């Protein structure tokens, strides 16, 4: 059987999601794609479509409103995939840590493979992180990794699936009476 694993790191297609970022890290990611840094030379395409991507780039401290979309996008990405947390906010919550509307970093919700610190993280650092992420991608299996906080069942009202509040807040317990 032909071994596809070495091919994986030659064509990483990225999906970029802004989970409440200030746009600083987003601009740096776009700078990576621009002529000066040009990560297309590694085969990177910014697809914008979760079903066709391999690398999930997340910026921002994961606000309360963005967490459901975050998990939705994460579960829509086919295996094998890697997750990169870009920026200080995404790694730990940064200056927004312990605020009422912020969930303190990406790793409370989905398994993170590479942390790229910096406020905003520089394009060189993002490229370093991407190269590291590709090494991890090569060793990944096709087993499905589950996000941590998608515990609540979907509510089904009049035949329409409602995914609002499907992700729990940090520290929140499942209410058995509700399900």
């Amino acid at each position, binding site marked *: 059987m032909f071994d596809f694993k070495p091919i994986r790191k030659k*064509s990483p297609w990225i999906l970029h999601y802004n989970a409440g970022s200030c746009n600083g890290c987003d601009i740096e990611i776009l700078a990576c794609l621009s002529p000066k840094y040009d990560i297309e030379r590694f085969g990177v395409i910014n697809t914008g479509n979760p*079903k*066709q991507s391999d690398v999930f780039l997340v910026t921002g401290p994961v606000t309360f409103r963005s967490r459901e979309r975050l998990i939705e996008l994460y579960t829509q990405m*086919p295996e094998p995939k890697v997750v990169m947390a870009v920026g200080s906010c995404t790694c730990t919550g940064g200056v927004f840590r312990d605020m009422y509307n912020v969930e303190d970093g990406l790793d409370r919700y989905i398994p993170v493979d590479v942390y790229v610190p910096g406020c905003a993280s520089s394009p060189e650092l993002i490229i370093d992180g991407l190269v590291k992420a590709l090494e991890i991608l090569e060793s990944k299996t096709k087993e499905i990794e589950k996000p941590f906080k998608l515990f609540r069942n979907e509510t089904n009202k009049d035949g329409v699936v409602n995914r609002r509040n499907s992700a729990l807040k940090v520290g929140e317990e499942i209410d058995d009476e509700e399900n």
Partner: protein
Amino acid sequence: MIEIILIALAPIIGGLIYGLERVVRARMQNRKGPPILQPFYDMLKLIDKQAFIVNPYHSILGIMHFVTLWVVVAFVILGQNLLYVVFLHLLSALFLIIAGFSVKSIYSHIGANRELQAMIAYEPILIMTAVGFYMINGSFDISIIRESSPLLLSLPLVFLAFLMIIPIKLKKSPFDATEAHQEIVGGVEIEYSGIFFEFLYMSKWLEYVFIYLLLILFAGNSQILGAVLSVGVFLLVNLVDNSTARIKMKHLIKIVLGIGLTLSMINLIGLSYV
């Protein structure tokens, strides 16, 4: 024998054209660009990815789009009837449109709608081109068209109209509203993943082979003119792609039908009086 080898290698040739195009486009933007074999790396990676099936018909129609397009390319290489080739190509586009409407995604619906509108724009010009070839040679057979003297001299306006539909078929600016990667995230291809997306990705390569094979028909029996035409149009299309912005679907139809169809009609009417 050489035809059969060419037909078997058609997707690979298309992949090489696509890889070369990505390099050329990168150099035009002062970038280094991906390696020339990048489309094949993408293809091998997509085989290995997990595939989501939204519904079975959606996936099967994607594969049928690829197979029909390959048959179209095979007919062009074998020198079959040009009118038949044009309508079979229409069928392959229809499979993709039905696939786009078979899922619930709104982006997929918009993409399929735009694909239909684009078809309204480019299909008359393809037929006009075939009619133009018929008026000169008295036959729709591609093998006969290939043996005639260069057709570019008697069909200059039809050639201009044909140039206008190349960006629509190859999903290039300014006529790439059907795909519109930043707005509707690829249109009909949004719900495809893994190995099923690969068929769509490879049918994009076959589209390149199809368009450039039709382009070479304008050169008739002159191989030098054919080579000059394909290289020149390849560079021109990429230059236009890099230097223009995307236009709306409404304007696309207006421009292509208004200018392209009028130009080819003038040419054909003039031809009938000569």
